[in-house]
């Protein structure tokens, strides 16, 4: 707690660390501003990744910390500092961060359009009845309003037409390995993504990444679950980082050997025990971004390759 003597020098002496922002263009203050920014960045990362609560972490807190990290990252990108931590490595990251840039201005716009894809808002008839909250957990809300007729009765989940492209076939493969509801959600997100003009790639890339993260999965309450949906926004941030430092060296990976039997209810007929390695192999061709929870494995694999080369080649 604060109070008994300033343990942190910066609190007492560094004007730049607390309170007001010193413009980064000021000559001598630039250093303290950078220091301040770096400190806050480190603190934010620690908050997101060192926290292992027994209960679900506060979404508000996670979102605020995530926004902080993104803001700092944006600043750094604009300043052109290409430290490895912040390299937007190759093309997949850039569209992603473009997405962020798109998303944020869109949201902060004062007229505040709803976050739902614009097309779906317009297709929602004004006279449609209230959406029963039970339907929300389908995560197929993009199609459910069209299906509704009368309020009190719960309409059946609409059948979705999978768009046949390389991504959906990849997702189908994943579906073979993973609980069925995940694919329903991923396909729904895909249709949503297609219709909303967002690059169809991103949301699908990240849905599979969310699979092993059982701890932060979104639970479907009544109908077949959407599966282990990564709700911590931090995942998106992680994919921007090339993880070559100590941050994830000590991740306890036992958590990620997830047992699909504990996740879905009912309809999941294609459940099969899947190991993180299998998942990784499936995902690898479709994403040049490392999958977060499997990062340690990927590091091991590349290290292994490296070692093999050394042993066999040269």
């Amino acid at each position, binding site marked *: *707690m*604060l*109070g*008994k*003597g300033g343990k*942190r020098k910066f*609190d007492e002496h560094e004007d730049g*660390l*607390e*309170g*007001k922002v010193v413009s980064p263009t000021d000559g001598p203050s630039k250093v303290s501003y950078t220091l*301040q920014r770096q*400190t*806050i960045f480190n*603190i934010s990362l620690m908050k997101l990744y060192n926290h292992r*609560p*027994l*209960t*679900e972490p*506060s*979404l*508000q*807190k996670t*979102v*605020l910390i*995530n*926004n*902080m990290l993104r*803001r700092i990252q944006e600043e750094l990108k604009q300043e052109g500092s290409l430290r490895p931590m912040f390299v937007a490595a190759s093309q997949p990251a850039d569209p992603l961060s473009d997405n*962020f840039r798109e998303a944020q201005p869109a*949201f902060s716009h*004062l007229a*505040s359009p709803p976050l*739902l894809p614009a097309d779906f*808002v317009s297709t*929602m008839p*004004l006279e449609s009845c*209230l*959406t*029963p*909250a*039970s339907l*929300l*957990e389908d995560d197929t809300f*993009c199609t459910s309003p069209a299906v509704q007729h009368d309020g009190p009765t719960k309409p059946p989940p609409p059948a979705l037409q999978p768009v046949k492209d390389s991504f959906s076939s990849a997702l189908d493969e994943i579906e073979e390995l993973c609980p069925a509801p995940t694919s329903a959600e991923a396909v729904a*997100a895909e249709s*949503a*993504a297609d219709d*909303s003009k967002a690059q169809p790639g991103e*949301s699908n890339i990240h849905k599979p990444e969310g699979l092993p993260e*059982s701890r*932060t*999965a979104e*639970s479907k309450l009544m109908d077949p*679950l959407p599966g282990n949906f*990564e*709700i911590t*926004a931090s995942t*998106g941030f992680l994919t921007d980082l090339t993880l070559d430092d100590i941050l994830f060296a000590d991740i306890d990976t036992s958590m990620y050997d997830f047992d699909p039997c*504990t996740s879905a209810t009912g309809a999941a007929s294609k459940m099969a025990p899947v190991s993180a390695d299998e998942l990784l192999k499936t995902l690898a061709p479709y994403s040049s971004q490392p999958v977060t929870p499997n990062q340690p494995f990927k590091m091991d694999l590349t290290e292994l390759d490296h070692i093999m080369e050394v042993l066999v080649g040269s």
Partner: protein
Amino acid sequence: APGRPGLVTGMDACGSQAAVTYIVFVFSLPADIISTVEFNHTGELLATGDKGGRVVIFQREQESKNQPHRRGEYNVYSTFQSHEPEFDYLKSLEIEEKINKIRWLPQQNAAYFLLSTNDKTVKLWKVSERDKRPEGYNLKDEDGRLRDPSMITVLRVPVLRPMDLMVEATPRRVFANAHTYHINSISVNSDYETYMSADDLRINLWNFEITNQSFNIVDIKPANMEELTEVITAAEFHPHHCNTFVYSSSKGTIRLCDMRTAALCDRHAKFFEEPEDPSNRSFFSEIISSISDVKFSHSGRYIMTRDYLTVKVWDLNMENRPIETYQVHDYLRSKLCSLYENDCIFDKFECVWNGSDSVIMTGSYNNFFRMFDRNTKRDVTLEASRENSKPRAILKPRKVCVGGKRRKDEISVDSLDFSKKILHTAWHPSENIIAVAATNNLYIFQDKVN
């Protein structure tokens, strides 16, 4: 003149801060941290919820000729376990039993009804008194044991006999499985037939009679969760217009919605946001702008919002800025980085109106709480602590020293205890009685009437 009893509203005209006299009651709830405090609509009852899922209801003593000095004291009326901890097997996470909010229904018969909620489930509780019990059953004796039928020779009619007053709480409705995210607010509609529950991303509308279905009226969940940058932080129905409600966000905005315009109120009718002050911009601007509480005035003409450093009053007819801004503890502005590090910056302070909407109150650190008189623009800092809380004590205003020479009785910013935070307070609907929750202690301050 100093020393005149009365609340902030009665401060003397010459401007010096009067010492105010209060009768103080302190209740210590064993073991658990109070997480919500709420008076009912008459002020006769005061409910508290705690981290352990319990609800304790206090009742005000009626005026009695035998003990006139005890008029107006609050005593424990009922205690019950509202929520139990649960385990979410899908996420391998515990669901806390902590009571996030309690809201009373207006009284319509002899029983009292309240809504209590934890992160996931809302429950409607009926609190009723029993002061008679039937005696003289034929088939069972007074202990409830069955009698041997062959021993019964006489038939009698059971009669109701007086008994010691017993207060029972029974769960009448359980509204579950409608929230994926954590419920932060519940609000009873002025139609008394419906209420809403709000979580981080959605707001649902319930009918009190129907527990297996609720309707979604606000949904800000993005199609791609990675685009999520804003959450709902609080929501409340308008006190008189049953079609109108407001919700606040983590970006410091308030949206007023009209349920008549559309089933899904994602398009707001009004949008309240104050432009950022560029001279105060910092890394923490967004976080400290996050609104932790929103409350309609009793009149329904204003809304009050609490963010980390200020309380703001908004006129419903003016969306571009608040009409009043009160600094709660601006001396913390230079400490934001430390407060971010120790998570205090995420503390959710609540705020309340007094019955006439002339005074507003909110909590701070070091067991301090603040009151602002909207008319006189006077404000006062008081402390909820054992040392100050002898009955009929004169509560001395406190002051935080922000730099320079510290006067006697002032506290320096660095000496503040940030573990002693007052997040929850309540104000009697018509009288100058306030309830302040300080960790596991409940303080009830009452204006002394000579």
